[in-house]
């Protein structure tokens, strides 16, 4: 059984995963237990705030479009899954919410963790790594030939 302390981590992975990859991972696992929408997917705005260097004072960076969705899965007790994703994809928010509910489900959490969350996490790490290497390849080192001393 997964701990709720891991929930922010899996919600983040689901929110950041590309929708096509998430669909590919989820399709073979269907059918899922029945669920209804407690809050149908809806689009809104959220203010992103930042701190310069991570330590400065808080400033408003700008607004981003968010889609959120809450599903309720028929089980005992009923499970609620929350999905908050960047952008305006209703389907992405729904899938994220369904996975969040399934990860709290004793019969499903193992499957979802191994078949969905871990591959998505690996893919995200790989993307990050590729990006890092591309960036590293463009690195320029400046050095001083003469310091101007006579």
């Amino acid at each position, binding site marked *: 059984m997964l701990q709720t302390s891991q929930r922010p981590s899996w919600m983040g992975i689901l929110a950041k995963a590309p929708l096509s990859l998430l669909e590919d991972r989820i399709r073979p696992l269907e059918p899922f237990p029945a669920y*209804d*929408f*407690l*809050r*149908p997917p*809806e689009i809104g705005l959220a203010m992103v705030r930042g701190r310069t260097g991570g330590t400065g004072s808080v400033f408003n960076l700008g607004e981003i479009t968010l889609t959120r969705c809450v599903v*309720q899965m028929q089980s005992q007790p*009923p499970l*609620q899954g929350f999905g908050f994703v960047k952008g305006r994809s209703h389907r992405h928010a729904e899938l994220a919410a369904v996975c969040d509910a399934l990860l709290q489900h004793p019969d499903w959490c193992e499957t979802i963790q191994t078949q969905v969350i871990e591959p998505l996490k690996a893919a995200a790490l790989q993307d990050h790594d590729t990006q890092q290497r591309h960036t590293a390849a463009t690195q320029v080192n400046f050095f001083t030939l003469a310091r101007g001393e006579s």
Partner: protein
Amino acid sequence: MITQLPGFGDPVDDAQQTFRALLNALSHPGRLHTLSTPLTPPGGLTPACGAACLTLLDLETWVWLSPAFQTDVKAWLQFHTGCRFTPDPQSANFAILPDMDAKFSLNHFNMGTAEQPEQSTTLFIQLQTLIGGKPVLLKGPGIQDQQGIDLPLPDDFWQEWQQNTQNYPLGIDIFFVSQNQVMGLPRTTQLI
């Protein structure tokens, strides 16, 4: 605690239709308007009152919820509207009451201030039915000549209401709601 009951099936259309009905109710005080939005609110809250709450409450409204309601009403409103709750009726924008009991008094609620009369409390009062009480005649904006109503209310309510109408522009507005009907009683409506 998170609610287990959904809100509007079609949030945009349902909220617009409910808003129109509430607007009509305040525009024509004393007339009965139907709120037929399908809704399954938690125990104690009628479908009409639930629909009115989902339509008018939002993140910026302060709500005084009668202690007679069960906690799942609070959880439902909080989840679907994001409204904030206050234990002090004087600071509430909206107040929701499950019925008219003996302790009820309009004086508990905020009348607004001369600078901001719109800050007064709007009441949602649930009644079993909106007919069958002592008949009274109303006059005021939105009423041609006169409008007769027979809300089942305690006798001293109409005395308090007369005081409420004498402080215009200050005053309290009321929506009386039954299972699927609503009647508006704005501060401008006077007794004949």
